[in-house]
């Protein structure tokens, strides 16, 4: 059976943003171009546009997050939407209410858009398909689902790369660290390969690289020095605390020695390489402070662009 991608409606419009996997290049470029226009709004004294006036955006975070939730909140407010933050992990889920019951209840409060983060891969798909089946005109934006995807992060990363490097089609991009558990890495891989980046590399120990990366168009490196050679963009990934000791890695110290980004390793990359990180950073674990605060780091630009990207996504989907 041929099924439509669940984030595209029957007219080919973006109804939900669930993943970058399968998102057409033109759609990604439209988000980047729209974000570019919104970036100016953030620099004005009056930072508001009336695009989503009267619309209700619900931030549903089943997993904790500060940065993503805050930037979505700011983005929605700059578009004049009413924003409601729900910290679900502390309320209904712990009382045993099922995910879809929670969704039905919130839908009954006349929500227009759900921004969802959930620890389970695929949870936003379940919600979007459930709402579509119920005939609810509510949009779902995936703000990170398990190990699966974090589409707005990949879009803001693509924006950042385009901002500094202009052209995707001549680039070498390296993703370094815990690819196995990283939704950011998966979304980035799809975005970069879709945008025409000819060489996407993944660098890490075998315990942190999932099998089948080659099938996603990625070259695998275990030696960081080899993997960083001549790359134009380095995307460092966060190493979760609970993974630093155990059967995946022996210690944070050893990890830093092998895969932490230092000035010395950065020198192996192209001289004008940029360093990115989705945050929050573990200084001294995956990245050295000298690099994080150095001239090649564009980590804070990512945060600024993140608001414009989220405004663009909200605007395109809900306006």
């Amino acid at each position, binding site marked *: 059976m041929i099924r439509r991608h669940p984030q595209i409606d029957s007219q080919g419009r973006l109804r939900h943003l669930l993943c970058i996997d399968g998102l057409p290049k033109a759609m990604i470029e439209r988000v980047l171009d729209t974000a570019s226009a919104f970036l100016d709004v953030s620099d004005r004294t009056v930072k508001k546009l009336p695009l989503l006036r009267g619309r209700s955006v619900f931030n549903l975070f089943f997993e904790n997050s500060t940065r993503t939730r805050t930037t979505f909140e700011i983005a929605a407010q700059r578009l004049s939407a009413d924003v409601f933050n729900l910290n679900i992990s502390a309320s209904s889920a712990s009382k045993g209410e099922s995910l879809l019951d929670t969704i039905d209840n919130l839908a009954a409060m006349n929500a227009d858009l759900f921004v969802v983060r959930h620890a389970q891969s*695929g949870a936003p798909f379940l919600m979007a398909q459930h709402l579509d089946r119920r005939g609810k005109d509510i949009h779902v934006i995936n703000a990170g689902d398990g190990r699966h995807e974090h589409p707005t992060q990949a879009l803001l990363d693509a924006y950042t790369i385009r901002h500094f490097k202009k052209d995707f089609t001549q680039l070498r991009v390296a993703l370094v660290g815990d690819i196995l558990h990283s939704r950011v890495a998966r979304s980035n891989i799809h975005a970069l390969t879709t945008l025409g980046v000819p060489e996407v590399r993944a660098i890490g120990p075998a315990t942190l690289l999932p*099998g089948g990366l080659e099938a996603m168009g990625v070259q695998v490196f275990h030696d960081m020095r080899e993997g960083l050679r001549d790359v134009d963009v380095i995307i460092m990934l966060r190493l979760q605390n609970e993974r630093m000791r155990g059967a995946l890695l022996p210690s944070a110290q050893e990890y830093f020695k092998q895969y932490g980004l230092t000035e010395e390793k950065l020198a192996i990359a192209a001289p004008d390489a940029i360093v990115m990180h989705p945050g929050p950073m573990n200084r001294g674990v995956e990245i050295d402070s000298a690099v994080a605060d150095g001239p090649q780091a564009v980590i804070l630009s990512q945060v600024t662009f993140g608001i414009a990207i989220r405004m663009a996504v909200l605007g395109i989907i809900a306006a």
Partner: protein
Amino acid sequence: MKLVIRNGRVLRPDHQHGFALPGLTDLYIADGLIVTLQPAGSAALPGWQADREIDVRGQMVAPGLVDLSARLREPGYEYRATLESEMQAAIVGGVTTLVCPPDTDPVLDEPGLVEMLKHRARGLAGARLFPLGALTVGLQGEVLTEMAELVEAGCVGFSQANSPMGDTQVLLRALQYAKTFGFKVWLHPQDAFLGRGGVAHAGPLASRMGLSGVPVIAETIALQTMLELIRVTGARVHFCRLSSGAGLALVRAAKREGLPVSCDVAVHHLHVIDQDIGWFDSNHRVDPPFRAQRDREAIRASLLDGTIDAICSDHTPVDDDAKALPYGEAEPGTTALELLLPLVLKWAREAAIPIERALAKITCGPAAIIGQEQLAGSGAGELREGGVADLMIFDPDLLWTVQRESLVSQGRHSPFLGYEIAGRVNTTLVAGLCAFERSKGAAN
């Protein structure tokens, strides 16, 4: 009760090729047994006074199906399904003999529970039920059950269901003990650690979807361990629901070596692969997970070369609430009793083998694994004069659409929902009595 079934196309599956009787045949049935088969239109048997005649007009008549794994959910999971609903689903699917695994609540580890289950099943006009007893108390993998007592209560073998055995020494002793009495042990090979937390086949798709994987080595390492223990103990083992080509290669070699082993696969694994999961469709969440395309091809090849002895439904009714969850949290399981025949027919058509040969994997093949001694010499899984009249009468070409409403089972989840499939049972006989007759005009 005397019954004549007129104008049937009789299929007699057997382990080699099976054969179809030429032309049309009349079957004479009395007191639960098949008395004789006569070419249609031949003179009536002298002195034969039938209580009932059924003209099946060229439909196929075959032995009732034998299913090696169907969860009926009693006792303990009545909110998922009941004995009534699932026994009915069985006969609607043409299944007249079925084996249920011991992972009920409480677990089937005491003779009283087994007797109660058998007693409840006898009270229903459904399939013949043969429970497996738990190999260890509570399926905890620590203490052996009273196997001899459980066999007296009606168990046909012992199993850990889907609970892996972490402690190899307990498994060794369980096999030694079972061997002492000649009992068969049914094992689902999955390493206790490598499969832990996995929800999909470990491969490019699981990586892409961010789902934790069950690697093929979880199956092969468990198999290697079990095969070594079988070499040492000589215990008879049936491997349940293999999923990978590598696992089947080990079983093939073990059979060639002469080890007393057999194996089955779940019918949906003949058709579905990991790529079919789509966008996290929890109807595809099963245990073991759907594997790669080359594994499916290996399963099909192993059916033809005899490595796989039987196809089971692995019927596992799950309630809606347990499926309406993110993929990783959804309960594994699919409803399959009513799909067993059409899905085997689909395979037969695609593999271009005669129906009677395909049917061997769901009739005489599984019956031999249960053992005619355990089946009380009933001749289940066969169709012969003097044998028990457990029969199914079906139209192999009738198209129908799998829909929630078209299923009798309380389990309404299947990867095949929405599919049009061919082949439907119209009448099921258990011990010479009509246990099920599809009413005319009932399309779906």
